[in-house]
């Protein structure tokens, strides 16, 4: 068990190292001097040189790389071009909102997707099944901002049921603050879940159809167990672990979706920060945001793997 965790942890570190290395060299190899992009307008050669020295750009590339890695290990992602604050501080202040949004979407998609996939598989060829199949294929074609704007305009602006921006009402205290939090979370969360749910349920349905054909299911039915009981007690138990693993693989996509939803709803997470940084051409911030999101996804994936292992008697033994 310890070996399994150690192996997965090594893999996680390797992933992050490769992500960091590739971005570092990719950005250095691209044409264009980043210092030219810091401030528009005129800049004397002396000012440029001072800036290059400040960012270490006058040193050889490998030296820059080691410098960058050693700073990174200490949690230093550089200084934002525009906000003139450490990138790490800016991102860490925004990360909880993205984690809340993507985390809730992760849990809600699993909670809705499993029953939907199992139910569709059990009623194969019936109307429910065809609806799930259609929803599954359409899901690939849904553009997150389009769904977000639809929900924002209909449920937010026209019906006035939900707030149309922000993450919390700062004047609320205690229980009201939690209510305000979920009230603001509802629409961004829903737009992510709508996009994720269909394809997820469709894959689970296919997995479930395989499970339902296995011997232990047939023998359970043969022992006289009702179809319902067989389905929910025996088949579902074996469908849960693959379902969790599958959702773990979707984490990268989920975070990408969160970037887009946050932009639509002015939700104060890392995604909205990225949108603002694009407008301001703040490269250290963009690079830091990618690295922090990559680390978050890789760590969340590691946790998913370990949870799966703890739930799986075959690996745990």
């Amino acid at each position, binding site marked *: 068990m310890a070996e399994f965790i150690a192996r997965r942890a090594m893999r996680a570190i390797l992933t992050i190292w490769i992500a960091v290395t590739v971005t570092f060299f990719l950005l250095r190899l691209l044409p264009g001097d980043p210092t030219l992009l810091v401030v528009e307008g005129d800049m004397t050669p002396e000012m440029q040189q001072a800036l290059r020295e400040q960012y270490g750009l006058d040193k050889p590339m490998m030296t820059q790389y080691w410098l960058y890695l050693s700073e990174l290990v200490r949690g230093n992602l550089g200084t934002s071009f525009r906000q003139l604050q450490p990138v790490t501080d800016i991102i860490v202040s925004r990360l909880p909102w993205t984690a809340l949004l993507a985390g809730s979407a992760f849990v809600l998609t699993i909670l809705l997707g499993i029953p939907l996939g199992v139910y569709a598989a059990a009623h194969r060829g019936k109307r429910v099944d065809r609806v799930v199949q259609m929803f599954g294929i*359409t899901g690939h074609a849904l553009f997150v901002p*389009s769904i977000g704007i639809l929900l924002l305009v209909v449920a937010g602006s026209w019906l006035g049921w939900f707030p149309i921006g922000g993450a919390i009402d700062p004047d609320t205290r205690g229980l009201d603050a939690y209510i305000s939090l979920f009230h603001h979370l509802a629409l961004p969360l829903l737009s992510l879940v709508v996009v994720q749910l269909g394809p997820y349920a469709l894959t689970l349905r296919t997995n479930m159809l395989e499970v339902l054909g296995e011997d232990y299911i047939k023998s359970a039915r043969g022992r006289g167990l009702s179809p319902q009981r067989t389905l929910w007690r025996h088949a579902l138990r074996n469908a849960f672990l693959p379902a969790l693993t599958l959702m773990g693989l979707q984490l990268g996509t989920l975070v990408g979706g969160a970037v887009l939803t946050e932009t639509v709803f002015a939700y104060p997470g890392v995604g909205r920060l990225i949108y603002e940084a694009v407008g301001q051409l703040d490269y250290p911030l963009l690079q830091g945001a990618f690295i922090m999101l990559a680390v978050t996804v890789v760590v969340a994936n590691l946790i998913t793997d370990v949870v799966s292992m703890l739930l799986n008697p075959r690996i745990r033994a």
Partner: protein
Amino acid sequence: MSATPPDARPAGAVAADEPTASVPPSAMRSLRRFLSKPSGALSISMLLLFLMTGLFGPLFVDRPGGLGAEILRPPSLAHWFGTDDLGQDVFAQVVWGTRVSLTVAVAASAIAIVIGTALGLLGAYSRRADAWVTTVTDLMLSLPLLPLMIMVTALAGPSVTTLTFVIGLFSWPEVTRLIRSNGLVVVSMPYIDGARALGATGWRIVTREVLPAVVPLIVVSVLLTAARAVISEAGLSFLGLGDPDSWSWGRIILNAQRSGVISTAWWQTLFPSLAILLLVLSATVAGVRFNDSRDPRLKDR
């Protein structure tokens, strides 16, 4: 229910059995089977409609630009999709955006297919390379690719070329996974051993025997990768990373968001959204339908 010939074989086997036939006799049959369901015919018609719009639309519709007198008008006979806050015609923007979306989708998909197929075949054939191919593919798939694409596009400078390369260079892992897993099945077939026994080189086996067998999957991959590329392009343009000199569906939606009219001028976000939905949906359905039409066992599903 579609009429499936009883002797229909999986396309991989056909290509392998009859390498000399220029047009396999099953090609016409596959096409007929593809079109036999409404979803097949409908998705292909829709794709053709978008293709025509992208190719010829800009010849008939003036390039949107400048300031118009009629600001934020709802759809009418004069402006089918309404006008935006600068008085520009949204229909013209959508038509011009079609060209960019299709260009990026086709070119990015081509890049991803070439890299993805090459790596997938390499992994399937060479056991030594396979460990590397699978590791790199899995690593790429586990990263949040949108933030990565945002960062690279921003630094390279937004343009149609940048978008194409960035999307293409980050979209191959899914192709690799598909081609590799199916290539493994082909490589383990007896006729590959036969070719090897006859003294064929690794290069020859991969290009002459394995590649033709996975061609149908490449067709499916082209459609699905292009569909995903449309979504990626729209996403990047929506975040302000589109080409500032050309129209794009994502940019139209971004303009609506920036000028704060998404709640009032619903037409400015609805029509580009529908264009994205219909194009991606028809490419996806065509891909799925093509895949099913090759497999007679699936005709009931």
